[in-house]
C-alpha cells in the first residue's frame, strides 16, 4: 500500500477538468503515462472521485495501457482499481492541464512522442479493448407530456444501473427532456479532448412531429413519433455509455445522475441544420483546402473511402427497407379491409358450413392483419431505424477524419507562421535592431511551441481516429449482428404464429359440405 504523499501533487484544477484530462491521457499517450508513473510515485491524496485510493505502486504500469480503454481492466484487479485509475489519471491530467493551458511554455518534461504510433502498441490496445466489460445499463422510458399548449414538452425517464464506483448509487433515474439530450451532444462535440472521437448522435429535431405531440399525444401518429424518439434516445445513450472515454466524462455523468439539469440553451444551433448537414458543411470546408495532405500512411485515405462507400450503400438499403415498411403497412390495411368484406360474404352465404368457414377465414385474416402490423413495426424499429442510426454515425466518423485534417491544417499554418517569424528575425539581425530583435526571438519561441503542440495534437488525433474507427467497427459488427438476430427472430415468431392460425382454420375448411 502506498504511504502518504511522497511528493506534493500540483494544485488540482476543478472537478470538471479532470474529465478532459482523463481523455487526454486515454487518447493513447501510453508512453507518456508510463513516464509519469515509473518516475513519480503515487499520490493517493490527489484522488478526486471519492474512494480512498490505496495504490500498490507495482500495479501502476500494468494499468497504464489498460487505462486508455476505460474504467475496467482485468477482473482480478483489487477493489480499488477504479479509484487507482482515476487517481492515476488525475495525477497526470493535472500536469497535462498545466502544460496545455499555457502553450507558451515548452513541454520539456515529457519526452517527445514519436510522430507515428508504432503498430505494436495499437494492437496491444485492440487486445485490451476485447477484455472490456462496461457495467453500465441505461434505459429511456415513460414518456410523459409536461405542460400544455405550445410550451409543452415530453419528459423521459432515464434509468441507469451500474456497478461503477464513480457513480453515487448503483441504480438511479432522472427525468430528462429532448433538449437535454441535444445539450449533452453539444457539450461533448466541442471538447478539444474528445477530438477525433466518434461521438454518438442523438435523433434529429422534428418540428412537425413535436407540434403534433404538443397538441395532443393520443392519436396513433403521435404515439408512434414519441415511441420512435424514445427508442432513438435510448440507443443514443447506450452508445454514449458504451464509449470508454465518454462514460468517464463528467457531463455524461451529470446527465445520468443529476436531479435537475440546467436547461440547455444552445440547441438552437442544431435546430435548422441537423447534425448531418452540420458535418457535411464542415466536410465541404475541408475539401476546399488548397494544400493537399501528404499521407505517408494510406490507411486514412483508404478508410475514409470505405466509410463513404458504406454510407452510400446504407442509404440505399435504408430506402428499400423504408419501402418495405410502407408496403407492409399497406398490406396490413388491405388485409383488414378484406377481412371485413369476407365477414360480410360469410353472412350472406346460405350454406351453413361454408358460411361458418368464410367467417373463420375473415377472423384468420384479421389475425394476419395484426401480424403484419407487428412485422411492420419490427421492420421499422429493429431494421430501418438502426440503419438510419448507422448512416448518421458514419457521418460522424467522417467528421472525425475532417477534424484530423483541420488539426493538420492548423499545424501547417503554424509552421508557415514560424517560418515568417524566422524571416523577420533574419531581417532584423541584418538591420541590427536589438530591441525589436528580442521581441522577434520571443515570438519565434512562441511559435515553435505552437508548432510542436499542434504537431502532437495532429498525431494524437490521428491515433484517436484510428483507435476509434477500430472500436466503432467492432461495436458496429456486434450491434448489427444483435439487431439482425433480433429482427430475424421477430420474423420467425410471426411465421410460427401464422402457421398456428392456418392450422386452426384448416379443419373448418375441411368441414365444408
Amino acid at each position, binding site marked *: 500500500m502506498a504511504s502518504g504523499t511522497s511528493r506534493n501533487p500540483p494544485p488540482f484544477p476543478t472537478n470538471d477538468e479532470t474529465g478532459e484530462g482523463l481523455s487526454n491521457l486515454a487518447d493513447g499517450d501510453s508512453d507518456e503515462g508510463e513516464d509519469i508513473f515509473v518516475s513519480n510515485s503515487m499520490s493517493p491524496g490527489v484522488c478526486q472521485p471519492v474512494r480512498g485510493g490505496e495504490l500498490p505502486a507495482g500495479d501502476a504500469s500494468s494499468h497504464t495501457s489498460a487505462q486508455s480503454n476505460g474504467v475496467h481492466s482485468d477482473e482480478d484487479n483489487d477493489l480499488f482499481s477504479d479509484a487507482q485509475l482515476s487517481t492515476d489519471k488525475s495525477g497526470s491530467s493535472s500536469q497535462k492541464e498545466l502544460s496545455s493551458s499555457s502553450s507558451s511554455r515548452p513541454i520539456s518534461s515529457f519526452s517527445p512522442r514519436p510522430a507515428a504510433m508504432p503498430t505494436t502498441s495499437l494492437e496491444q490496445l485492440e487486445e485490451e479493448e476485447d477484455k472490456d466489460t462496461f457495467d453500465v445499463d441505461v434505459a429511456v422510458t415513460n414518456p410523459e407530456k409536461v405542460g400544455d399548449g405550445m410550451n409543452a414538452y415530453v419528459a423521459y425517464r432515464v434509468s441507469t444501473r451500474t456497478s461503477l464506483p464513480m457513480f453515487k448509487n448503483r441504480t438511479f433515474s432522472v427525468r430528462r427532456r429532448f433538449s437535454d439530450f441535444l445539450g449533452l451532444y453539444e457539450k461533448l462535440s466541442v471538447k478539444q479532448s474528445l477530438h477525433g472521437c466518434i461521438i454518438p448522435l442523438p435523433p434529429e429535431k422534428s418540428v412537425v412531429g413535436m407540434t403534433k405531440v404538443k397538441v395532443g399525444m393520443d392519436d396513433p401518429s403521435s404515439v408512434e413519433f414519441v415511441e420512435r424518439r424514445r427508442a432513438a434516445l435510448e440507443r443514443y445513450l447506450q452508445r454514449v455509455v458504451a464509449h470508454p472515454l465518454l462514460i468517464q466524462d463528467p457531463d455524461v455523468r451529470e446527465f445520468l445522475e443529476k436531479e435537475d439539469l440546467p436547461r440547455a440553451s444552445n440547441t438552437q444551433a442544431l435546430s435548422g441544420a441537423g447534425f448531418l448537414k452540420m458535418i457535411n458543411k464542415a466536410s465541404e470546408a475541408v475539401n476546399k483546402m488548397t494544400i493537399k495532405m501528404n499521407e505517408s500512411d494510406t490507411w486514412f485515405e483508404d478508410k475514409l473511402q470505405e466509410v463513404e462507400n458504406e454510407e452510400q450503400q446504407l442509404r440505399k438499403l435504408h430506402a428499400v427497407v423504408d419501402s418495405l415498411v410502407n408496403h407492409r403497412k399497406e398490406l396490413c390495411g388491405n388485409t383488414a379491409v378484406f377481412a371485413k*368484406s369476407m365477414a360480410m360474404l360469410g353472412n350472406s352465404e346460405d350454406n351453413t358450413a361454408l358460411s361458418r368457414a368464410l367467417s373463420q377465414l375473415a377472423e384468420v385474416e384479421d389475425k394476419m392483419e395484426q401480424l403484419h402490423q407487428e412485422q411492420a413495426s419490427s421492420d421499422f424499429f429493429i431494421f430501418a431505424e438502426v440503419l438510419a442510426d448507422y448512416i448518421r454515425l458514419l457521418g460522424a466518423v467522417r467528421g472525425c477524419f475532417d477534424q484530423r485534417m483541420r488539426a493538420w491544417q492548423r499545424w501547417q499554418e503554424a509552421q508557415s507562421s514560424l517560418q515568417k517569424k524566422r524571416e523577420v528575425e533574419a531581417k532584423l539581425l541584418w538591420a541590427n535592431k536589438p530591441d525589436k530583435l528580442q521581441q522577434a526571438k520571443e515570438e519565434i519561441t512562441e511559435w515553435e511551441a505552437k508548432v510542436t503542440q499542434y504537431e502532437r495534437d495532429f498525431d494524437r488525433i490521428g491515433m484517436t481516429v484510428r483507435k476509434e474507427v477500430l472500436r466503432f467497427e467492432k461495436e458496429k459488427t456486434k450491434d448489427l449482428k444483435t439487431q439482425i438476430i433480433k429482427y430475424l427472430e421477430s420474423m420467425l415468431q410471426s411465421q410460427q404464429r401464422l402457421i398456428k392460425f392456418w392450422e386452426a382454420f384448416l379443419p373448418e375448411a375441411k368441414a365444408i359440405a
Partner: protein
Amino acid sequence: MTATLDDRDKEKMRSVSVDLNHDASLLIDIPDALCERDKVKFTVHTKTTLTAFQKPEISVPRQHEDFIWLHDTLVETEDYAGLIIPPAPPKPDFESPREKMHKLGEGEATMTKEEYTKMKQELEAEYLAVFKKTVQVHEVFLQRLSSHPILSKDRNFQIFLEYDQDLSVRRKNAKEMFGGFFKNMVKSADEVLISGIKEVDDFFEQEKTFLLDYYSKIKDSTAKAEKMTRTHKNIADDYIQISATLNGLSAEDTTANRKHMEKLSDLFEKLRKVEGRVASDQELKLTELLRYYMRDIQAAKDLLYRRARALVDYENSNKALDKARLKSKDIPQAEEHQQQCLQKFDKLSESGKKELTSFKGRRVVAFRKNLVEMAELEIKHAKNNVALLQGCIELLKNN
C-alpha cells in the same frame, strides 16, 4: 414466348372448377399457347369418342376473341335461356408485368447487374404466372361446356373445337359488340323492372334475393382480395432489392460484418421466393376463386332475368288475351301466344331450378377445395420460412 404446361402444372392450376373433364367421351384441354406481342394463341386439343365429331382427336389454334364469340352465340340461343351459360374468360391482361418491365428498363442504370438479373427473373416469373392463369380460365370455360349435358352438344361448340380454319369472326365480333352493348343497356333497365316483379315461386324469390346480395358482396371481396395479393407481391419485390443491396454492402466490407451481411442477403433471396409463392398461391386460390364465382353468379343472375322476362311476357300475353276476348278479335292467336309464353316460362323455371341447385353444389365444393388448398399452402410456405429463418439465425449465432 411459348409456354408448354406439363400435366403437373395443369393439375395444380385446375383450381377453380371441379368435376370437369371426367367424361371420357369429350375431353378438352389447352396443352400450349403462344404469346405474340399482344395476342395469345391457344392450342385447343380435343379427344372424343362421340360420332358427331369428324375425328377422334383434334387440335386447333384459337384466339381470345373466338372464345368470346362462342360465349355470345350461346347466350343468344333461345333454347339455352334456362341454362346458366358459363362466364366468358376475361381478356388476357399482361398490363402488370408489362408496366414492371417498363420500370425495370428505366431503372436499369441505377441497379447493380445482380439486382437487374434478379428482377428480370422475377418479372419473367410473373409473366409466366399471368400466362398460366389466362390459359387456365380459357380451358375451364371449355371444360364447363363439355361437361354440361345440353351445352356440350351445341353445334357452334363443335365448330369451335373442330373447324381447322381461322374463325374469321372479327367482322361479326364488331357487330356483336355493338349488339352486346345494347343488350347490356336493355338488361339493366330490365333489372330494375324485374326486381319489382312479384315472384310466384318461393324458390326463385329466395334465389333472387340471395344471388343479388351475394353478388355485390363477392364483387367487393374480389376487389379487396386483389389489392391484398398485389401488396404481397410488392413485399416480395422489396426483398429482392434488400438482398441485392446487402450483397453490395458485403462486397465492400472489410470487417467481420461482411459475413453477417452475406448471410442476410442470402436469406432474403430465399425468403422472397417463398413470399412470391405465397402471393401467387393466394391469388390463385382466393382471388381467382372469388373472381370466377362472381362471374358465375352473374351468369346465374342472367338466367333469373331471362326467366323474369319470360314471366313478364307471359303476363303481357295474358293481358293481350283478355283484351282480345274483350274485343272478340284475334282470340286464337292471342291464345296461342299465351300458351307459348307459358310453355317458355315453365321450361325456363324447370331448367332454371335444376341449374341453380347444381350451381349451389358446385360452388360449395369449389370453395371447399380452394380454401383447403390455400390453408395447406399457407402452412407449407410458412414452414419453409421458419426453416430458412431458423437456419440463418443458427448460422449467425454460431459465427
